[in-house]
């Protein structure tokens, strides 16, 4: 069995990730959480779509077979890669732990 993300043990990494979603993470435990979250297990794969490079991003879902179209979630637009990473982290956190994170990426003081 590979490592299972547990809210009680791993919650301490949430804030570290929110502070810097794209960086060389200082906690090996956070990198482990991310590796588990990012492990491809089949099905749709989340992707980052730059509608305008360096300015405008949305999340997309790439299906397992190329015959099927990529689904673009254009209802939620991000100004940075980091903001999109945070949104995906929150989705995956919920998927793995059942917990909802109610913090926006920009809301650093919350």
């Amino acid at each position, binding site marked *: 069995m590979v490592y299972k993300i547990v809210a009680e043990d791993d919650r301490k990494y949430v804030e570290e990730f929110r502070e810097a979603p*794209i960086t*060389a993470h200082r906690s090996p435990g956070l*990198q482990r959480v991310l590796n588990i979250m*990012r492990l*491809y297990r089949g099905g749709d*794969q989340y*992707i*980052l779509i730059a509608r305008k490079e360096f300015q405008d991003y949305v999340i*997309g879902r790439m299906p397992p077979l190329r015959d099927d*179209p990529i689904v673009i979630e254009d209802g939620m637009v991000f100004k940075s890669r980091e903001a999109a990473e945070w949104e995906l982290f929150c989705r995956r956190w919920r998927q793995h732990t059942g917990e909802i994170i109610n913090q926006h990426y920009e809301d650093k003081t919350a």
Partner: protein
Amino acid sequence: MLKITGYPDRYSVAPGETIAFKVSLEEEDSFEARLVRVIHGDANPQGPGLKFRHVPSEADGRHPGFTQTMDAGSYMTVAGFPALDAAFTFYTMIWPTLLRRDDQTILSQWDDATGTGIHIGLKAGGFVTVTLGGPGGVKQAIAPKAMVQRQWYALAVAVDPVSGAVRIDQSPLIPYAMSDDRVSAQFTLSPAAPLPGLMLAGTAMADGTVGRHFDGKLDSPILIEGIHPAALQDRLMRAPRDIELGRLLLAHWDFSQKIDTAETVDTGPYCLHGTLGNLPTRGMKGWNWTGEDHSWTRKPEHYGAIHFHSDDLYDAGWKTSVEVTLPEDLPSGPYALHVSCGESDVDATREDYISFFVTPPKDPAKRGKRPKLCFLAPTCSYIAYANHAEHITARGVEILMNRMVHFGHSDLWMYDHPELGGSLYDTHADGSGVAYSSRLRPVLNFKAQYHSWLGGHGSAVYQYNADTHLFDWLEEKGFDYDVITDEDLHRGGLSLIEPYDVIMTGTHPEYHSTAMWDAMKAWIDRGGRLMYMGGNGWYWRVAFSDHWPGAMELRRAEDGIRPWIAEPGEYYHSFNGEYGGLWRRLGRAPNVMAGVGFIAQGFDFSSYYRRAPDADNPRARFIFEGVPDEIIGDFGLVGGGAAGIELDCITTDLGSPTNMLRLASSEGHSGMMLLVNEEFGPVPPNLGGDQNDRVRADLAFGETAAGGALFATSSIAWCGSLSHNGYDNNVSRITENVLRRFLDPAPFPTSPDTEGARP
């Protein structure tokens, strides 16, 4: 999405020569074009931004345009094959590889417009079909049992086109227990109306394309007159040929002959030789391969298979949209045809930069006074990475990148157009590796403005667009230079680079043919000064072929970072019979050429170098003029540092010259910067740069015995740091110091007794 794209008919063109551009539009019926010098193709707002210089030419202005498409899928055609209007039996050995695809062709003599003729195919799930079309309509026989993917079968199909009688026999080479894949079935269909011409692995469609492709291997296809039992196949494949059966022979294609060509040889009496379309894979082991020999040149009879793919593409064959004869006085350098069909927005990109390089004039009399600096444009590496789509074809890229997988408009278009063909990093739809890559098609990542899913965080540029960081720096610093491309070097050899004192590489010159390797080594051994401006260079051996100009072959053999792995027995290039794979496995490690060799790979963040004791060696004094810093390159557009993506280090055991100075080494890499697998036997637990001090880039310098020198940055990310702080930084200063000294004709010391060589 992309609304306009295109490709040139060549990547290298000399002044006075004509270059043709093939453009496709998805909107509008015309486009604007202008020729530009490419200076900086990285749009990252943290850097200098996009820079192009307009070069007035006959291309300037509006041109008519239309949508052009690509017809992917390989096949064999025999144009003059007579109509199969009497009873015949078709035999072949077959290894199907993509049974979820429906409506594949094994053999066709079919008129798509009228629905007449004979078609032997495969239905989704692996069921052989025989379809006869004639006055009575179209009738199809379907084998009652399916083939199993990636298993060899002997297939015999007997057809009487007059009566409509059909017999299908299918026999697995290996009779597995509990399997149920043997077929012997008869059918009665309507009579067929055959027509001349014959194809294998594809069918001529009414719209002029070739469709209904086959994925898999065919070996020893044979046609004989009359209805015969399946058991005859062994006798037919035997050599010397059975005289009695030979009297009935219509055709017997032996794919083990002329493997290095686009032809297939019919050993039958009518010489109905075939022509291959879209570059199927040859030099493939056949049904009878034993492992006795692994080279098709030594044991051709074991390499009688051709692997066809429904997504092979050799030449998109687009019509020319713009043709430009370059001015005689156009300076050598990187250029592009900028094409646009409107304003880009969040939904669509409506411009493209179709890249190419201008070389010095070919006629020595026209060359005039040339610069002593040459940029060796790594077009082999650009072709290897052409339309690199591992973010689509391989899952699990996100964990390697340590961030979400980036898709721009080009990537979305690429996803929707698998007929673009893959890069040498991709796999075909059937899972087999892409062993050939052609430049005769749109190459979406050989463009300024392309931001990759692969490059380091920040600019995320890779290969061509990363190399524009160097173009920009050379412009900014006022260095005049010529460009020679890899393919030029392959064809022209040493004489092309002999006039230059200094050669600068791109950021990732990974792929080299034997001719290129030999020419470059000869140049170094005669006193050349090499500035290796990247990482993971001289890694893979590749091959070219005069039979398939514009295409390049790679076999991912034996070892190395392999996104796919060649099948055992398929390590030899079909183009030239050479053993493929890593140059290191051929006894020519990159260290022999550049003084350093590949050690680590990681795509998230770059780091910095720390000055090493050799930096204070008097031999290296010129390199550090004005650079007292302990830390070098802790900034940059590619991952935030000068040491990143792929790193090299000095290893004398692999051929690094013993006099190489380790000027600085990188440190502080993340756990995602990993030791490459050819560097260890048993897998150690500390592969990451956070735990393994072998994971480092060595900034290196060494003199050569001929009075030349080697300078190696050992990092793909180095050039991403050149523009930092208005080009005033220690990476830029070191690069400039080295280049100025390398351009100084004064020889480098070759002996410890030479003045200045000792501390």
